[in-house]
């Protein structure tokens, strides 16, 4: 691991300013992804701003009947929160489907959104990767692409976003709250938060340099039957090949977002009107324009069948 300097931030705005002021600085919260990448020298921050002592670890009710989840709420605590379990079951389920008990005890809400891809070529520093080393090329295109994106990818990058939590937040219309180095705050709908790779796959979110996530808010509960179904190579502690986060209402309508298929949680709201007609009617629209590889074309079939299974369970 490369050497770095370290400070503990005293307020969110100070933390943002500290990262903006120090070239190559990064925030550190749970550290479970960042330290893994620092050991491999994929991430080489010159300075770490420890945000763990900021008081951003509470889950509070909002005026409009929703929840405001502090950026530092650990994945275990968010999944176990009684309000989340009762009213946002798809979020609890998504969190519990991810990582291991040890990692969920450390990993934070904001860090989960900001975790990097697990594309094998991003992790292999001996191989070109446009996300790790912009302009070096994409080894995944034409390489081992089975776990990678089938839609929204570019000629520069076919990585997927690995989060389960983010897929549930996308289906729940969460909003990401941030503070900028100059102290200004803003609210970013999660649909706009993660970028597609396009020509700059190293730029994964719309956050400005130094901009710090302070919370994620959920709108008032939408009810319905909430299901998160994750299909993976092992029964536990593995990333999704395909996942579906769904909210299905008694009239057969609802919403669905897909994980493991793109550079961000993948949801096409316009396709959701087709939900009463079954999974294929939805996924035909959700995955229109998909560009799978020979190795991962199975994900399109798997996504349709997984949604079908989720709809059957919800209507059970």
């Amino acid at each position, binding site marked *: *691991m*490369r*050497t*770095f*300097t*370290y*400070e*503990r931030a*005293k307020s969110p705005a100070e933390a943002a300013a500290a990262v903006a002021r120090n070239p190559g600085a990064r925030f*550190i919260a*749970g*550290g*479970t992804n960042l*330290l*893994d990448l620092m*050991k491999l020298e994929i991430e080489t921050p010159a300075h*770490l701003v*420890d945000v*763990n002592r900021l008081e951003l670890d509470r889950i509070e009710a909002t005026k409009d009947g929703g929840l405001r989840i502090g950026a530092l709420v650990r994945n*275990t605590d968010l*999944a*176990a929160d*009684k309000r989340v*379990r*009762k009213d946002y*079951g798809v979020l*609890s*389920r998504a969190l*519990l*489907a991810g*990582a*291991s*008990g*040890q*990692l969920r*005890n*450390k990993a934070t809400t904001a860090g989960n959104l900001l975790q990097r891809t697990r594309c094998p070529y991003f992790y292999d520093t001996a191989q070109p990767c446009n996300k790790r080393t912009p302009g070096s090329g994409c080894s995944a295109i034409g390489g081992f692409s089975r776990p990678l994106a089938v839609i929204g990818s570019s000629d520069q990058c076919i990585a997927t976003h690995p989060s389960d939590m983010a897929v549930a937040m996308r289906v729940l219309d969460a909003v990401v709250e941030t503070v900028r180095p100059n102290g200004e705050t803003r609210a970013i709908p999660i649909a706009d938060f993660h970028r597609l790779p396009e020509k700059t796959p190293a730029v994964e979110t719309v956050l400005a340099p130094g901009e710090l996530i302070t919370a994620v808010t959920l709108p008032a509960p939408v009810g319905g039957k909430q299901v998160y179904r994750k299909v993976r190579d092992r*029964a*536990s*502690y593995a990333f999704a090949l395909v996942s579906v986060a769904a909210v299905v209402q008694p009239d057969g309508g609802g919403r669905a977002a897909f994980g493991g298929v793109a550079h961000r949680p993948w949801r096409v709201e316009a396709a959701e009107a087709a939900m009463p007609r079954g999974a294929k009617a939805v996924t035909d629209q959700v995955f229109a324009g998909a560009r799978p590889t020979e190795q991962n074309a199975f994900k399109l079939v798997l996504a349709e069948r997984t949604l079908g299974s989720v709809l059957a369970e919800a209507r059970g």
Partner: protein
Amino acid sequence: MQQVPEFDMSRRDILIVGAVSAAGAAAPGLASGQETVAAPVVGKVILTINGTARALEVDLRATLLDVLRETLKLTGTKKGCDHGQCGACTVIVEGRRINSCLTLAVMHDGDKVTTIEGLGTPGDLHPMQAAFVKHDGYQCGYCTPGQICSAVAVLEEIKAGVPSHVTADLNGRPKVTPDELRERMSGNICRCGAYSNIVEAIGEVAGVKA
């Protein structure tokens, strides 16, 4: 010494001459035969390890795992993958099990840490240690300290009502079942494959037949 908010650290830049001049011919960027290499930056931290407060000066890069093993010589906690995938390094920090390999020691100033050495001793085993012995919950034993720390915390998590991926009713109380134990222990790998005996040992401590 340079003072950083709430934090003492020092940084020295070392001029390395000899080592680089030997490799100078193969390093075209180093025309002068000299390179500045950053020395480790250190920080002070107080950790309460198994009930004893320890004031330490640590390399900022040192993980909690490395400080336990290399600085404090508490070698019960094991380094397996060093990337959070195997669980051999599991310890209990502030009552929660974590991978000690994926956290910096300096991030834990003031924290209470329990390692396998703090759970029991050879003459006075923790009930989970005794159950692992009784049920033969290991072969080579390398993953065992992490398995036991994890298992102790798993039973606390179930008691606290934390649900898991296999908990059928999110709004009910989770129960100790073999399925629950297998799911909750999935962050601890045992390459000898003692899993079924591990589940039996944990079940016995929880007072259920696993």
